[in-house]
């Protein structure tokens, strides 16, 4: 029982991170109809920027204070992501307006390759330490209730909390603020949005910036966990089943989907895995999502598509 709870909690905490990345996908998709395959590379890129600046800035400016360094680095990395977002809008999206989803998807594949190459050329391809002072040691709950207690990984706990906060903030931003409303307008109908004077270009820059910020936070969390290196670009792959499970256009879908997948893959690995020889995490989430799509092609909360002719 205790073990089950541990797995469950572990899954939920991982799931929260998936939700975060998935949210990046959903925001961009809602606002620009782009399925952003570059999300993962953005995570890597942002994390690299953060880690390297945290390392460089003190040397350039000649101070020695980890907190300050991290803060400045965060700002710098954020700035980088804003520029990136702007460039992407200018050089790619603006040129591909009203193209089919598949074309845009492929374009983001291209973007992601570019990010990987560029990021590692500029920031290097070693493994970099990114220490934002998250505690690494575990805590044990209900030691009296369960033998050995329930282990909770503090770092993951904090990570999950940060993710949850950001998710909440984004949902609010999306629902409440004027920009958020504009975003949703664009999401519903580009032409209409334009006709009532919402500048598509700016909206897109904003969403991609937001996505960049999401990537940065995810990158920091994973980076401080795994060290900042190339593999970070692969973690986003794990958020894909989340997105299709939750529905490409649904914020709550992304959040719920993330938790479901997170818990699902941990439980499956721990309970089903041993019978199949282990290592099933990597595809289990996909198969679940796939099976689900067969029943509900538009995902948990996605809108139903009706053919008009």
């Amino acid at each position: 029982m205790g073990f089950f709870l541990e797995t469950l909690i572990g899954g939920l905490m991982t799931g929260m991170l998936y939700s975060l990345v998935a949210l990046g996908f959903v925001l961009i998709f809602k606002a620009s109809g782009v399925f952003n395959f570059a999300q993962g590379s953005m995570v890597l890129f942002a994390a690299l920027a953060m880690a390297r600046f945290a390392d460089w800035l003190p040397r350039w400016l000649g101070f020695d204070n980890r907190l300050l360094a991290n803060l400045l680095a965060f700002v710098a990395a954020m700035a980088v992501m804003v520029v990136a977002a702007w460039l992407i809008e200018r050089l790619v999206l603006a040129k591909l307006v009203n193209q089919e989803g598949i074309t845009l998807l492929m374009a983001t594949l291209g973007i992601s390759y570019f990010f990987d190459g560029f990021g590692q050329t500029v920031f290097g391809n070693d493994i970099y330490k990114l220490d934002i002072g998250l505690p690494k040691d575990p805590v044990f709950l209900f030691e009296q209730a369960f033998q050995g207690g329930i282990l909770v990984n503090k770092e993951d706990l904090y990570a999950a909390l940060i993710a949850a906060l950001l998710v909440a903030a984004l949902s609010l931003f999306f629902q409440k603020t004027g920009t958020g409303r504009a975003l949703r307008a664009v999401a519903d109908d580009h032409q209409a949005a334009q006709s009532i004077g919402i500048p598509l270009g700016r909206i897109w820059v904003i969403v991609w910036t937001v996505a960049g910020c999401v990537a940065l936070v995810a990158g920091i969390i994973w980076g401080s966990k795994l060290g900042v290196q190339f593999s970070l670009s692969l973690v986003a792959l794990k958020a894909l089943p989340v997105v299709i499970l939750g529905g490409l256009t649904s914020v709550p879908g992304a959040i719920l989907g993330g938790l479901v997948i997170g818990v699902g893959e941990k439980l499956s690995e721990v309970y089903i895995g041993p019978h199949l020889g282990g290592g099933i995490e990597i595809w289990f989430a996909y198969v679940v999502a796939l099976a689900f799509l067969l029943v509900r092609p538009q995902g948990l909360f996605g809108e139903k598509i009706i053919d008009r002719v």
Partner: protein
Amino acid sequence: MKLKSVLFAAAAGATLLATLAAPPAAAQAKEQFFPVLPYRTGAYAPNGVPWANGYVDYLKLINARDGGINGVKITFEECDTGYATDRGVECYERLKGKASGEIFQPLSTGITFALTSKAPSDKNVLITSGYGLSESSDGLVFKWNFPMLGTYWSGADIIMQHITKKEGGSLKGKKIALVYHDSPYGKEPIPLLQQRAKLQGYDLTLLPVAAPGVEQKATWLQIRQLRPDYVLLWGWGVMNSAAIKEAVATGYPRERMYGVWWSAGEPDVKDVGDAAKGYNGLVAFGNQGRVIDDIKKYVHGKGQGTGPIEEVGQTLYMRGMTSAVLAVESVRRAQERYGKGKVMDGEQIRWGAENLALDDKKLAALGLTGIMKPLSTSCTDHEGSRSARIHTWDGKAWQVTSDWYAADEAIIKPMVKTAAAKYASEKNVTPRTPADCQS
């Protein structure tokens, strides 16, 4: 207008093709060419880079200090494989034409598998120091493979010996878990561990981790539930540090974790720092010796260093450097038979690699005392030396914490024989008999 550009493009394409079709420049006289297949990119770059630097630095050292191998200058060229099998093959094809017979060291079990079937027909020597097919230590079947300084079976065997010793001789009823990179590399040790499990009566749990190994929470929850007495780590790249961090997070004692030599380098622990204190790993050589100073003096001193100088002497760097030693010495040995100061071809280098005899005297002469154990290969045994030590991370650096162990031939030999035989039948290779070894 457009036509012009099209024609221009066509012309450009043609010229490019011409450059490609042009046969690669053949090695000049008095130059021995060494291809280098590193990976400085991709998920495994952090571990691939120091290895490559060590390898290249040593080649540079031989030129800078000794003016080559008995006067034969060393030339080399890198081709980045990114740890991908097909790119490895491509690099092999690209570089192999550069000289008649070369030594390849792909630093990837997958690429080794692919090249094993190509090297013989091309007469290229394949030295896989500390990786590759364990059964390829049988030189009768694998004429061109040289898994020198220990295969994975040797490595696993040594770890088990060490653990057995710690447990006072018996592992009966103990629980051992193997956390491994879900790839041919990670699976190599399994047969040996199972074999020993039969003999020693411990029970072995296999926990694969999908490459690249960033997500291990479930794995370590299982370990926490299973509470094994020891965890063997067979990871590469990010998987290692991730594993150690998960161990910290699930409170598994690092003292009871043992990594293969690929899981016990600086990149694996450096960003874990103190938390990794007590974590153990295999190491097949020392890091104090004259050659280190020579590299600092002749290579880095002259601004020729491939990587940062701090890296010199680190575990993976040393693995790369010693691999280069093996390559160079194979050529040197070949020259002893086929003529000093001559450029050696594939067959000759192969003979050299097969008849290496690096005794203490030779090692001393090379400034390798305290770094490498004596090693001597023969056509039945391409491994040469199967000994290693345990070293432990003290939070700042790796400290050697055991004496040398030698893998237990009694267990490994028969396994090698059967596996090699299976390979021979599959690929219908006819094994050599000890008689025609001198060819």
